[in-house]
């Protein structure tokens, strides 16, 4: 059986993608969404372009969250239990607990998948999962110390759906706390022994930061949706893929997820949040005559089902995919290339997420096996002086597009806030969880995880925000000028991407990969030609130094990012970027043939026996 698995969460291999799974035999990653000024690269002072300024089109939205008047019964119950168990375990004479927190994620999801005009699956699920965070030792040195270099998955447990099921909840908390305690005690012994054996690390910062307890109560959310209506809508939309020769599989998927999160700690945290995520995604796949797998996909994310567009717009998006697929089927294969490129906004956003974002996650500065690309760059210029880059989870939308990376309180009970990373081209800081690093003792609200994992610093909404931008037309002209200046036969325009990944550990190449789908050769006469079959690769510091100019057309990539602490929703926002040089290589070829027989309906229309 052929099963594709898009998961990619090796500790040193961090991936962002829209992670849209379309059934067991087809899965794809999708990129979303889609300009300059005289700029100077600090490492390449000659890289200056004089381009006309244009108005910046970056509008940040901050959504008001409904506040709850009082905690839910579950939060109250958890708060009571964490105090009781905290008292028991912190008074252990041998190995006292110094931190205990419970988090319950109560998630409901409707998932409707249609293919080629018929419903393929329709599920409605609910899960209520408990995570226990328990630490023994002290803030300076605790049982999680090896996490710097080791695995983060710890598992979680199902708990009672009924808030009145006190005995069941109490029993689960008691059992899971005991299990976590036993594991933590064993880990602490190993940590202390390892400290005696190993050479002292350069970074002597603590293992956990003390943060003020937070009380934050949002109103719970409920999952309400007309499932029959959406079933009909996705069925109809997926039928648009019928009858197109090169589209062997065509899917439309509707997902609506509500998550009510309750977080309490023995230190006094009382947090409840309610979030809704709605998504419509589209995907098509086929095989070219020369054995290339053709995929094209798209998706729309919103903070509520009412934020999704109407059918007319959705049909437009499907038609767009169909046109792209037909174009890709005819497109020539591209060859390896080095030269100038114009990277559209969404692709540029993914590029920054992989090239830069993962390398400024705090915990990576501490791990002895990590590449630590930016650990010694604080205060140093690393790119063009017009660029600011920051990560702000409190931004709920950009230019009216809802952001996946929006939240108010992170997975460690710390209020989310903007983390400035690059200011006027100078590197200024890291994304921080409650794992301190040298020079940064506290969290900036970026401790994130998928339930079942331990939280580490992760990206939320990474925003590339140049102070000077230019129009798209001027950027395209600048690309052609650069092509001519470098005497290249053509430049490249990177359009839609499926996602990307990067490796950050020492021993691995400090490299990134972005997987473009829609790539165009741009000839000196301005003509653009669609090509296929390439991968964009590079190394981080080099790529940042090649950024010449930015457009004014900010685009959003909404996706899901996989790394050590699981898969978390994330967004990246960037304008189009002009790069002096990129490098692309050939994609692997699937080696598959197109089907030997004609499709049933094609055979019928052509008069051949079906």
């Amino acid at each position, binding site marked *: 059986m052929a099963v594709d698995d898009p998961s990619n969460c090796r500790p040193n291999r961090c991936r962002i993608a829209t992670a849209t799974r379309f059934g067991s035999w087809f899965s794809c990653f999708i990129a979303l969404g889609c300009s300059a000024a005289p700029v100077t690269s600090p490492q390449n002072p000659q890289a200056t372009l004089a381009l006309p300024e244009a108005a910046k089109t970056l509008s940040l939205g901050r959504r008001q969250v409904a506040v709850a008047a009082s905690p839910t019964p579950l939060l109250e119950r958890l708060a009571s239990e964490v105090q009781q168990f905290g008292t028991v375990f912190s008074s252990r004479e041998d190995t006292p607990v110094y931190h205990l927190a419970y988090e319950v994620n109560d998630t409901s999801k409707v998932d409707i998948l249609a293919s080629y005009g018929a419903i393929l699956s329709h599920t409605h699920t609910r899960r*209520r999962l408990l995570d226990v965070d328990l630490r023994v030792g002290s803030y300076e040195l605790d049982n999680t110390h090896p996490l710097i270099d080791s695995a983060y998955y710890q598992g979680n447990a199902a708990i009672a759906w009924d808030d009145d099921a006190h005995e069941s909840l109490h029993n689960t908390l008691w059992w899971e706390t005991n299990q976590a305690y036993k594991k933590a005690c064993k880990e602490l012994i190993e940590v202390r022994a390892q400290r005696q054996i190993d050479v002292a690390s350069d970074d002597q910062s603590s293992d956990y930061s003390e943060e003020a307890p937070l009380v934050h109560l949002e109103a719970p959310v409920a999952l309400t949706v007309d499932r029959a209506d959406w079933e009909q809508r996705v069925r109809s939309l997926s039928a648009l893929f019928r009858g197109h020769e090169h589209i062997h599989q065509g899917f439309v998927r509707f997902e609506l997820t509500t998550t009510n999160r309750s977080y309490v700690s023995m230190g006094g945290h009382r947090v409840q949040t309610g979030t809704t995520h709605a998504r419509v995604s589209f995907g098509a796949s086929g095989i070219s005559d020369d054995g290339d797998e053709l995929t094209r996909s798209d998706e729309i994310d919103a903070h509520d089902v009412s934020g999704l567009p109407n059918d007319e717009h959705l049909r437009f998006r499907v038609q767009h995919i169909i046109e792209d697929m037909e174009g890709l089927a005819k497109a020539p294969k591209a060859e390896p290339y080095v030269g100038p490129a114009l990277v559209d906004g969404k692709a540029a956003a993914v590029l920054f997420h992989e090239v830069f974002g993962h390398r400024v996650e705090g915990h990576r500065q501490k791990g002895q096996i990590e590449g630590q690309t930016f650990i010694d760059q604080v205060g140093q210029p690393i790119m063009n002086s017009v660029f600011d880059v920051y990560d702000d989870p409190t931004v709920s939308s950009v230019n009216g597009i809802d952001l996946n990376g929006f939240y108010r309180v992170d997975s460690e009970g710390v209020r989310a806030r903007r983390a400035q990373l690059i200011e006027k081209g100078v590197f200024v800081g890291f994304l921080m969880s409650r794992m301190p690093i040298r020079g940064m003792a506290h969290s900036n609200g970026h401790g994130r995880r998928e339930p079942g994992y331990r939280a580490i610093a992760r990206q939320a909404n990474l925003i590339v925000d140049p102070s000077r931008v230019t129009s798209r037309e001027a950027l395209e002209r600048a690309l052609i000028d650069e092509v001519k200046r470098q005497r290249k036969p053509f430049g490249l325009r990177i359009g839609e991407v499926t996602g990307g990944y990067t490796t950050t550990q020492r021993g691995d190449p400090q490299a990134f990969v972005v997987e473009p789908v829609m790539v165009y050769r741009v000839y000196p006469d301005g003509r653009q030609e669609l090509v296929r079959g390439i991968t964009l690769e590079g190394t981080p510091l080099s790529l940042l130094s090649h950024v010449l100019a930015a457009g004014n057309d900010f685009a959003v990539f909404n996706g899901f990012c996989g790394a050590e602490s699981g898969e978390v929703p994330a967004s990246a926002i960037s304008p189009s970027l002009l790069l002096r040089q990129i490098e692309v290589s050939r994609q692997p070829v699937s080696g598959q043939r197109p089907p030997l027989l004609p499709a049933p309906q094609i055979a019928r229309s052509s008069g051949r026996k079906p």
Partner: protein
Amino acid sequence: MKQRFIKALRIAAAGIGTVAIPIISHAQIPSHPISVSPWVSPMQDEIERAMSLELPGMPRPHYIIATLIEQQEALVEASLGAVLQQHQDRSRVLKVEVRVGDRSFDNSNFLGGSPQAIVVWPAPLDDDPLCLRRLLWLAADRSYIGATESYEAKRAHREAMTIEQDRIDDFSASAAVRFRGSSAPVVPPLDRLSALATAASSVFSNHPKVYQSRVRMAVRSQARTLLDSENRVIEDSASLVEIEIVAQTQARDGMELSDRHAFASIHFDEIPTEETMVRWARELMVRLETMREAAIVQPYSGPVLFEGRASSRLFRTLLAEELSATPSPEPTEGQDTLGALATRKGFRILPVTFDVVDDPTVDRIAGLPAIGHYLFDDQGVRAQPVHVVKEGILDMLLSSRTPSKTVAISNGHGRAGWLGDARGRAANVWIRARDGLSRASLRNALLEAARKEGLDYGIIVAGFEESSGIEGTSFSLGRRDSQWPPSAEAYRLYRGGKLEPIRGLTIQGLRPRDLRRIVAAGADANVYSYRASANAVRAFNDSVGEIPTTIIAPSVLFPDVDVVGMAPPYPLVPAAAP
């Protein structure tokens, strides 16, 4: 059909002498007129079209089988009177297998080839024949390519091996059949299952010595449409109820102990009442609390009596999993393949008093529910009762359409599950012993055997720990099944009849050939139902599979079995709850 089965039963009865009561009951065998569902025509058309698949210079299809399964399922899990999860789902799956070459040599039964020779894809829930045709078109294409790759790899492998003079074919003939059975039953409402599960789970409330407990109920109903290129058309249904009550604790020294009560049936109307479920939970709790206080077993070599569920579990490993006639796939050097008895046909494998019948056509044996029931196997071959062991001699193995040196044709035991290839596998294995003893006599026989060995006591194993038999549940109790998991319930039996509970018992070294050494058997019948793995080669996580199977066996006494205890260290006992 019914008449034919009775004939088979008489043959079986003649072999073992006295059969006291009519102990096998038939599932309802409907005889609807053949009619055509909306799926048959599009599936037939695409299979016919796919038979023309051809890559230049490559073998063409000689056989194609396509199976569409629609499944409804519901699952509930509860603990201490509260629902932890519940789920209801409807799905359709299309499985397509293309065989290339010809019957004498094709791509099948080869591990070194492409896994895509069998394609399993989700199918549309909407009744849209065009969508189904498209799916079958793509699946057959994929399967054909995979089968071709496997064929060439198998051919290359054979080229490098010594050629056997009496090589057997790869695929046997089987008469085409058209059958339409009853429609799939409606799955019971979740509310009803939840009420039962929560009521039973409440039994463990206020019993802090039982650390963790779960009640799980899973029901599923399947409708199947099976067609092949030999004009076989089977439309039938299947259903399954599984109930599992599991509990876990630790002894004072920390030894982990778990036990479960399991029930399975193919009839939704056999879902037990709340009263019964509560009783099962109470019995389990008492057993576990007894074992918690039990002494640790000491190393022992001597007679062991396997009673009740332990006996039927024993026969799963020693007999049922070794009865396949299907040759092991090539190449399997160094791999643990099933079918250890395949070369023992005609030899004694059990005492002369034993008979074994595998009968998929029944849904009840000795009054006990049998879940390995079907009328047509996964290759569309009519199910047959097979008299596997006659008077202790292995007389027949369980076969699919893959011939072997000992069985040339299928006897309706080609079972594949959703993902695997059809191999001869057990369905409802009924093990009986002539002149079986009462429980008291059997225990006396144990004491007598112990006395002869100079031992003060004999050992009774009444249950093994089992990992969960239901997938998709949130909490795993018990260890993954090794060949012999630790005991869940065991005793020392002293002269005078004193029973002393013991814990941590693990048996060592029992193999299929040891079945011949059984010295006594009971007149009882004990049921053990499970879902067997579809793997042809044993894997670590084989304990939960897809193929419903039931073993019915009497208690049995082995004269000498090596027993050891689970060695410390054990995990710390959890701190008391506040």
